[in-house]
């Protein structure tokens, strides 16, 4: 079957040695300490006495080649032609000399790349695909991120938070954006509308039935053709049926809302890692700038900023003050939808007389 003219791929996963900044290579595994001379700048010192300054700048992640070439030009000029990207799509320039820090920052900012995202700042939002590319999105990703970072621009450039703040957005309930201090995620509120004409051709029906977490889907004959039926009483509108069966339309301009979750934490520092928790929902999918979402995000951030103690992450802060006061301080309503009823829900109920007034 192989077409002879086709090139066979070379399968090999490269190491990163040749890409490392020379100082990184020389001091590999031998660093001693670091500090942050200013927001956006990390200063690492190795056991040999070597020093490097890393300057971090925000990007739009979804970059055109012109933007990338511009970033490369800057790297060639200041940073020995080496860069790295962080998990949050920030770019990092590595400098061997402190004297280059200020000029590099000036150059970046001149070109519209904000320097920051280090330490106790709000870093770039973890980003997904949305309308730009995904086949199942209820909203956009890049546009949501852009509108959020515009609002949080100063919080990116400064280190004024009690501890680092990590945000994510996700354009469907699958949550490719991941757990975060504050996460914005689509939350559907109506069961899928089924386009029965297409089901027979497009969907592997047993697979879809198996995919539903609450067993709300069953095979059915509709207009004499094999299709599917949803028990709307059972359906929790999660959208899990939609990827394997696109005729099960879950997205709706009106009824696909946005929910906000807080207190996700991946690091093991102090408390154990935790998942984020739902604290608001029902926000409109208001492209192109989602002001209602950003207002709530900002409100939560400001409450945290005002009240948390140094080093308390969002989750640690709420752990101390308690959920009743979280809702008080953020002026968000605690609704019945926030009371867990999924598997293991008993672990999330207050099984104690620890109560706050």
């Amino acid at each position: 079957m192989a077409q002879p003219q086709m090139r066979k791929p070379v399968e090999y996963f490269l190491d990163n040695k040749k890409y490392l900044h020379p100082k990184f290579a020389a001091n590999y595994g031998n660093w001693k300490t670091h500090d942050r001379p200013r927001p956006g700048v990390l200063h690492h010192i190795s056991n040999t006495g070597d020093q490097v300054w890393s300057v971090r700048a925000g990007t739009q992640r979804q970059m055109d080649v012109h933007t990338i070439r511009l970033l490369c030009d800057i790297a060639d000029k200041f940073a020995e032609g080496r860069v790295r990207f962080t998990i949050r799509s920030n770019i990092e320039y590595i400098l061997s000399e402190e004297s280059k820090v200020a000029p590099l920052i000036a150059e970046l900012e001149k070109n519209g790349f904000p320097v920051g995202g280090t330490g106790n700042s709000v870093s770039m939002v973890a980003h997904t695909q949305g309308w730009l590319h995904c086949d199942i999105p209820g909203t956009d990703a890049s546009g949501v991120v852009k509108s959020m970072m515009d609002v949080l621009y100063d919080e990116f450039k400064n280190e004024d938070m009690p501890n680092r703040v990590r945000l994510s957005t996700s354009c469907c309930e699958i949550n490719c954006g991941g757990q975060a201090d504050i996460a914005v995620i689509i939350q559907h509120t109506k069961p899928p509308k089924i386009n029965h004409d297409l089901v027979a051709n497009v969907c592997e029906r047993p697979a879809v039935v198996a995919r539903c977490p609450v067993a709300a889907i069953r095979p059915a004959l509709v207009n004499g053709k094999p299709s599917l039926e949803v028990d709307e009483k059972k359906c929790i509108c999660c959208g899990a049926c939609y990827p394997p069966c696109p005729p099960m339309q879950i997205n709706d301009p009106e009824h696909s809302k946005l929910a906000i979750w807080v207190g996700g934490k991946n690091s093991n520092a102090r408390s154990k890692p935790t998942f984020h928790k739902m604290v608001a929902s029902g926000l409109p999918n208001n492209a192109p700038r989602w002001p209602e979402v950003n207002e709530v995000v900002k409100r939560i951030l400001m409450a945290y900023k005002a009240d948390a103690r140094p080093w308390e992450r969002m989750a640690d802060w709420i752990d101390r003050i308690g959920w009743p006061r979280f809702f008080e301080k953020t002026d968000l309503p605690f609704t019945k939808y926030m009371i867990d009823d999924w598997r293991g829900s008993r672990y999330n109920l207050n099984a104690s007389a620890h109560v706050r007034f």
Partner: protein
Amino acid sequence: MAKQPHATPMLDQLETGPWPSFVTGLKRLAKDKDYVVDLLGHLEHSYTTRKGYWKGGTVGVFGYGGGVIPRFTEIKNEKGEPTFKDAAEFHTIRIMPPPGMHYDTDTLRKFCDIWEKHGSGLIALHGQSGDIMLQGCTTENVQKAWDEINEMGFDMGGAGPAVRTAMSCVGAARCEQSCYDEAQAHQKIVNQFLDDIHRPALPYKFKFKFSGCGNDCMNAIQRADMAVIGTWRDNIKTDDALGKKWFAKHGMNELVNDVIGMCPTRALQIKDTKDVRKDAHVSAVALNDSQSLEIDNKDCVRCMHCLNVMTGALNVGNDKGATILVGGHSHLKIGATMGTVVVPFISLKKDEDYEQLVELAQTMIDFFAENALEHERTGEMIERIGLVNFLEGVGLEVDANMVTNPRMNPYVRTDGWDEEVAKINAKKKAAA
């Protein structure tokens, strides 16, 4: 004089050692009662073979459907005759104790007399559900014993799928931590449900327990379908004289390690007395002439620890009442569940407050009766239907105090979000 005792080499070994021996007690009874002679033989047989030999059956008293636990021997010879024939029946009568398990000796002696006459003479004070358990009676004598006990003013306890005998701590009678009148709550609730206690017709058992504070000396949270646990809403009360006395005796290290360091929510701090915050939700107790222990009562979760350590220097507040938790049970069939908060605070000061508590209990029982499956406890039912459905069913409002964490999964249908928020806002407005 009773008949010749059986040899009980195993049980005899339980007469040695310093702790009071139930075997010695049984032997005392066996002196006069063939019934107990055979009971000892029966028990020795269990010890030897390491198996139990009682089976249930149906025995009751006139007018009631429960409260007697019938036991018939299964140790029989080839002909099917009981080997220990005088102990072939060994039923227990469960009697509800006074709240707090207080007695005068007169009453106890009357129980002894009745039980010596009609039963084995063995009484357990008390069963794990709080009953006075009169243990060991023939079918024939059950009614006789019961009639006399009921004449004394005592009533039968629960068994089977019924409201069960309740328990309340010593509380207000002797304890400075008590936040409500446990005995009054206990009495009123039991009186409300006498029918449900005596005529088992619920899906499964339902238990009430009353603890005057979060120390929960009745283990209510884990053993009661509805646990009423005392708490208060205002600030911890402080007594400077006792504070100083405590500090003089125990010193700074103990204060830091045993009090401040053990508060679960970091609500406590040492302050120079002049620096103590003046906020309405802050209280403080003097440690010496210059330092105080400051309490941020907004951070306090009423865990009781600091009050336990510095008793008298710190006391529960004035705005007293209780937290109500629902769903505690042992582990059949989903694993043990604890009660979880369904009412963060109910005021329990005036008589009307207690009536409200009774009404709430009635609503819960009604909901349970209608919605639980057979042999399903409240905790299991709530796990099955979800806490919110339970709250809506019994007409309670959601509150963030009901959760350790809001949901961590998106598996929820939120169509009603806007109306829900509108309702909450309307309420807030009305309250403001």
